[in-house]
């Protein structure tokens, strides 16, 4: 039971980072300013790197599959990423707000894992901590900058926040069958606890940026991703991602 629960936790984390890293990497060469292009691309690499590390932990578990096979040719229904990461990049406002909300959530999650009883995750979280510090600094700085730079840019930030909040709340979809076991075994503190810590983290930045947090009681979190029910955007993304690899999954590329 615990093994299944750990696999579930690792898979959803790995899928989130792979898919958002993939999305963010789509900005490479197309960013609004060259310096930001470079920064965003760099963070996309970190995300994909974290995902790779998580898939390698999964590979070592009983019945684990090689990381590339697991990531590049698994059926859509077996993916456990949240809906937030699946959405197309849209504009830089959407991408940046998603980056802020997701990376703060990621930071909170990895911080909690520094206490994890599951050693591979505990070790990874210590390694990742330094990178995430810069991701959240980057996100905070841009949210503040763009929210204070005149009407158009403020409106874009607020609109993006309104649009994304329900998707972002979906990061913390409860893992009904597994969560209690993970909490009892002190693998991690559970989604509800992480959600509350995340709110504590994003709220002060949004206040500083004069952005209004949408009424949390009025939004319906976008759940379903963790049980394999995805948006129409994931299928085409996976097809594209596996296009070359699936020409011959036994070949070396």
């Amino acid at each position, binding site marked *: 039971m615990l093994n299944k629960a750990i696999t579930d936790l690792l898979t959803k984390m790995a899928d989130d980072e792979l898919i958002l890293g993939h999305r963010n990497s789509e900005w490479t*060469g197309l960013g*609004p300013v060259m310096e930001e292009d470079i920064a965003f691309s760099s963070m996309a690499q970190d995300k994909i790197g974290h995902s790779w590390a998580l898939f390698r932990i999964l590979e070592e578990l009983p019945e684990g599959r090689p990381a590339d096979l697991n990531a590049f040719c698994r059926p859509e229904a077996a993916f456990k990423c949240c809906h937030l990461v699946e959405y197309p990049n849209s504009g830089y406002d959407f991408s940046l707000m998603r980056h802020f909300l997701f990376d703060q959530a990621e930071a909170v999650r990895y911080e909690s894992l520094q206490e994890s009883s599951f050693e591979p995750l505990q070790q990874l979280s210590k390694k990742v901590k330094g990178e995430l510090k810069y991701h959240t600094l980057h996100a905070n700085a841009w949210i503040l*900058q763009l929210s204070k730079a005149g009407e158009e840019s403020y409106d874009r930030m607020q609109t993006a926040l309104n649009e994304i909040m329900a998707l972002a709340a979906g990061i913390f979809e409860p893992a009904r069958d597994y969560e209690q076991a993970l909490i009892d075994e002190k693998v991690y503190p559970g989604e509800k606890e992480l959600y509350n810590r995340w709110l504590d983290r994003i709220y002060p930045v949004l206040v500083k940026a004069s952005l209004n947090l949408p009424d949390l009681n009025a939004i319906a979190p976008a759940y379903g991703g963790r049980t394999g029910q995805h948006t129409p955007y994931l299928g085409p993304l996976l097809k594209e991602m596996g296009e070359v690899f699936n020409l011959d999954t036994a*070949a070396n590329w």
Partner: protein
Amino acid sequence: MYGGGYIFEEPNNRQVREEMLHDEPEKLAAFEERIARGEKIEPGDWMPAEYRRQLIRLIEQHAHSEIIGALPEGTWITRAPGFKRKLALIAKVQDEIGHGQLLYNAAETLGKTREAMINDLLSGKSKYSNVFNYPAKTWADVTVIGFLIDAAAIVNQVANSKGSYGPYCRALERICYEESFHLKQGHDAFIELATGTPAQKEMLQDALNRWWKPIMHFFGPPDKASLHSEKLMQWKVKMASNDDMRNQFLDMYVPKIWELGLTLPDPLLRKNPETGRWEYSDPDWDEFFRVINGGGPCNEERLQVRKWAEEHGRWVRKALMKPAEKHSLPVA
């Protein structure tokens, strides 16, 4: 509307004043002596207007080539097979953007702003390397670009890094250092296909056949057709002739390609044992000029993508340009 491209163009006063000076013979002699002694020219130093103009043109085109060059490979980031290739390709394309940034900065020291340069790129006034006007159709194309185009670029850039303009040389030193890693990753991915399954080999051979002509075009027209080279070589703006660089490239890489059992689509390609120089068929210079003047398979597409990026990023740049309302926080 795209038309204007960047919106923050500043008047380019510095260059105009310099043009008005006319070249003073004593200063020119001293300038040329410095170059002959191997000294570097720095941004504040006196320089002939023509030197400045040619350098801006050269560095600007180089910068454009980096950011346009990111596009054909960039479209394969989302399709790269496996974690290793995906990460390497993002890092590589990201480096190219970084090179663009370094080079725009170097060109700015000569008095033309990045915005003005981007405007000239988008309007078609300013050129970039022809090779990026060809499509990357399969994964094998990415490996050919990463191995052979990067190799060709290194030949060119190593030569230019010994030139006379300090900021450009320093930018190139760093660029060459990074490019040598690109070459390694390109070579590694190229070899993987060359030694892979029959389908992988076939894919690679097909890509090589399609890319050979643009690669032969890479160093520019033959010396006999190249204008104005002499003065530029004396000023160490141009450091090696097109034919010499092409020959150096062929000498270094054709044997490597043949060793892998691959062929090149030129029956006349051979090294003449007597002259030590490579001989090859005429690679259709009419096509080269047609492509450089906008008639290549991807010219339109590349500029459209760049225009999309400029257009969609405009509100962000505008937001950054409001210093009065700027929010200041320590970066770290």
